């Protein structure tokens, strides 16, 4: 009689034995669970609720949580598929030794239970440990007061556990499906059967060129920021499709062309690299394209949010020049004295002293940027005593009145009473609005800080995914290539040549996606710059700097991963 506990033990043992593959899998599971918990924690934290500008931040955090959950699902599915493929041989052996499929299903169930427990418990533990840090970080970036106390919201715990439980359950079902499809003899053979050389798919290559070109064209050609915002996702979609097509079809076409060039091809370094790449490009291309797109996502998300955050003072100066301000768009010069008088009356009523009083009419384009606010100081400087500034050809007339208040004065009370007052003024345009700029600034800091925070958070997640995919890709290829390198050493390849050939192959695999990602980021630059204009950020130099720095840091991290995986790969091949 079999003792109870045979399968749990066997499952634990096989997890340990396959540690090299399972460790990164479990680690990434733990990290993504921790990230999900933390973002939920911030979303549900009472301290964050009480912050100024909390609404904007809460919305962003909710969105972020959704992205983290979906992304964790995709990531765990991908790595799980990889792991199952690697273990086919082992399962085939169990099958031949007399383990039926339902027994294997039980084995897999226990493995899934262990993995899920490790990821959920470990993730929540790490998440709880890091939650305070993230809270402080959030307070810092949105310039809110630090929230004291330590809480573990039960809802966040429940959501995290439920989400990851569902992810692992689904993976288990997928594994059962896989198990049902295979025959033992195939299980034993695993991945070793020879693969047909891919044919060049010209249609796909052309499609890739067209979609990619269209995406780039949209980015460059659309000049209106609002339109750019709307078309951005279409452009992203086009470029993603184009990237997949070009990586699958284009890479094969390119490699075949290289192979045709006999002088180039028949050199020790290129010979093995090109044929090896060509041989497995069919499976490789999708992985490379995914890495490329993830890298692009990291680069664009991080560079834009960092840039917005760095430029926040710039934006605020433009949007909120005074503590309280009133705009009349499409106004007329006769509106100016009315609003001026209103300000003076309200100041007297409320007993507040107005400072830096500014009032003038100017011609400026009506834009959607920064919610129709314009940097006022240049116009003030031109005013030189007159009430009307600018060239009527620039756009409609806008009337501006604004002032600063003493630090202890209640700006929102003043703004509210001005706002009410303007309704009875009988102005020449209905498009009149009054800002409480102190509150506006706080809100803006909160939402931009929220953006910044989410940008870095998701950037880290995408980066982790890219790292994981790269790692697994290299490891699996290492095992496939080990036999080839043994043969090549038998027919006379020196170990130094083995090393350099590996280096050339790996660096191609690594730096191709990075190069393409940098190219995409550059291609998206005109569009993202225009979208930043919507937020009132017009400092292109700053954006260039942020993008460049992000790319540099990303490339450094990427290079570190490259070194690590290359070493691992070499260790596998050298056996």
């Amino acid at each position, binding site marked *: 009689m079999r003792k109870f506990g045979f399968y749990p033990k066997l499952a634990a043992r096989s997890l340990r034995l396959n540690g090299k593959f399972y460790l990164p899998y479990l680690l990434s599971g733990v990290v993504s669970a921790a990230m999900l918990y933390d973002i939920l924690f911030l979303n549900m934290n009472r301290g964050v609720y009480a912050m100024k500008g909390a609404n904007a931040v809460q919305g962003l955090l909710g969105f972020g949580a959704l992205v983290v959950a979906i992304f964790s699902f995709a990531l765990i599915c991908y790595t799980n598929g990889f792991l199952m493929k690697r273990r086919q041989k082992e399962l085939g052996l169990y099958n031949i030794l007399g383990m039926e499929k339902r027994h294997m299903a039980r084995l897999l169930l226990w493995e899934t239970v262990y993995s899920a427990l490790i990821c959920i418990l470990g993730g929540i533990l790490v998440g709880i440990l890091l939650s305070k840090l993230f809270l402080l970080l959030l307070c810092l970036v949105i310039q809110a007061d630090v929230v004291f106390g330590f809480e573990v919201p039960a809802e966040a715990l429940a959501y995290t556990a439920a989400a990851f439980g569902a992810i692992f359950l689904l993976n288990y079902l997928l594994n059962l499906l896989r198990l049902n499809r295979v025959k033992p003899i195939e299980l034993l053979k695993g991945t070793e059967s020879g693969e*047909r050389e891919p044919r060049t798919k010209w249609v796909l290559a052309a499609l890739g060129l067209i979609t990619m070109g269209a995406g780039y064209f949209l980015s460059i050609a659309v000049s209106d920021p609002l339109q750019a915002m709307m078309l951005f996702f279409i452009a992203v979609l086009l470029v993603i499709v184009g990237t997949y097509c070009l990586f699958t079809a284009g890479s094969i076409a390119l490699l075949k062309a290289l192979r045709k060039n006999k002088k180039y091809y*028949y*050199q020790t370094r290129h010979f093995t690299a090109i*044929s090896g790449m*060509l041989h497995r490009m069919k499976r490789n291309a999708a992985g490379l394209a995914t890495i490329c797109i993830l890298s692009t996502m990291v680069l664009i998300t991080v560079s834009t949010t960092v840039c917005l955050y760095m430029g926040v003072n710039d934006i605020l100066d433009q949007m909120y020049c005074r503590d309280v301000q009133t705009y009349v768009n499409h106004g007329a010069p006769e509106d100016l004295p009315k609003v001026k008088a209103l300000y003076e009356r309200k100041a007297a009523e409320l007993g507040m002293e107005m400072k830096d009083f500014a009032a003038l009419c100017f011609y400026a384009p009506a834009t959607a940027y920064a919610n129709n606010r314009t940097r006022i100081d240049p116009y003030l400087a031109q005013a030189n005593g007159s009430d009307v500034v600018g060239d009527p050809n620039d756009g409609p007339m806008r009337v501006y009145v604004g002032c600063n208040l003493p630090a202890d004065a209640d700006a929102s009370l003043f703004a509210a009473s001005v706002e009410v007052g303007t309704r009875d003024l009988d102005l020449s345009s209905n498009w009149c609005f009054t800002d409480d700029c102190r509150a506006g600034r706080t809100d803006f800091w909160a939402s931009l800080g929220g953006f910044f925070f989410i940008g870095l958070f998701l950037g880290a997640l995408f980066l982790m995914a890219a790292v994981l995919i790269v790692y697994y890709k290299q490891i699996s290829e290492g095992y496939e290539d080990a036999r080839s390198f043994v043969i090549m050493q038998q*027919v*006379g*390849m020196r170990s130094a*040549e083995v090393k350099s050939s590996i280096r050339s192959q790996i660096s191609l695999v690594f730096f191709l996606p990075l190069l393409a990602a940098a190219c995409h980021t550059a291609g998206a630059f005109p569009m993202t710059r225009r979208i930043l204009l919507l937020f009132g950020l017009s400092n292109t130099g700053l954006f260039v700097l942020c993008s460049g720095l992000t790319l540099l840091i990303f490339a450094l991290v990427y290079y570190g991963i490259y070194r690590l995986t290359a070493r691992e790969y070499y260790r596998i091949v050298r056996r």
Partner: protein
Amino acid sequence: MPLLEVKNLRKVYTTRLGGTGVEALKNVSFAVEAGEFVAIMGESGSGKTTLLNILAALDRPSGGRVLLNGEDMAGVRERDLTAFRRDNLGFVFQDFNLLDAFTVRDNIFLPLVLAGKAYEEMDRRLQPLAKALGIGDLLNKFPYELSGGQKQRTAVARALITRPAILLADEPTGALDSKASNSLLQNFEALNDQGQTILMVTHSVTAASHAKRTLFLRDGMIYHQLYRGQRTREEMFAEISNTLTVMTAESGEKSHA
């Protein structure tokens, strides 16, 4: 001067913990003249593989010497060994060891590419070789499209394209059916007729009967040798079978004694 000379070759494997060593080869001596086709027979454990590994410079002997063209292989420095092997020895393996990622042509070119030869030179060498081995039409195919015999002939072409002094074959017919085996062995004989020296390690009496000389290895020593001389293949086959029967019977008696 013989092409290959093996003098008092010994190989002792010691376990890592130092205990008593296992003597895989005890005092093996023989010589191979240029243009010979020699088969080495023996049961598993007789020392065949060890001998071949030492001849291939993949392993170092514990005692004795191996001279190739009068040059002591022990004198070749470790980092020159790969090049030495590539330039002097051609290998054929039981399971072909072709690379799936390469076409037949590129598989054959591989050692030359590693040696840094120009494409024109490689192509010039390939043409007659491919014709002789009957794989001229297969050059653009991939290994998975070939039969076992075709794969092994490709492997032979790869071994010979460097124009090695000796072709070393390790159970070349081990994974082939009888028809493919025969055609490969005929290829070997034809190559040998053109002057190629061949040293083949095998289990198969059929394979050995194609050789001009057969050495029998038992328990790490040369037990006997047979020259084919003017005998037909059938006569040679019978002779080798008899020798094997006697050899096996003797070792049976020994173990009972």
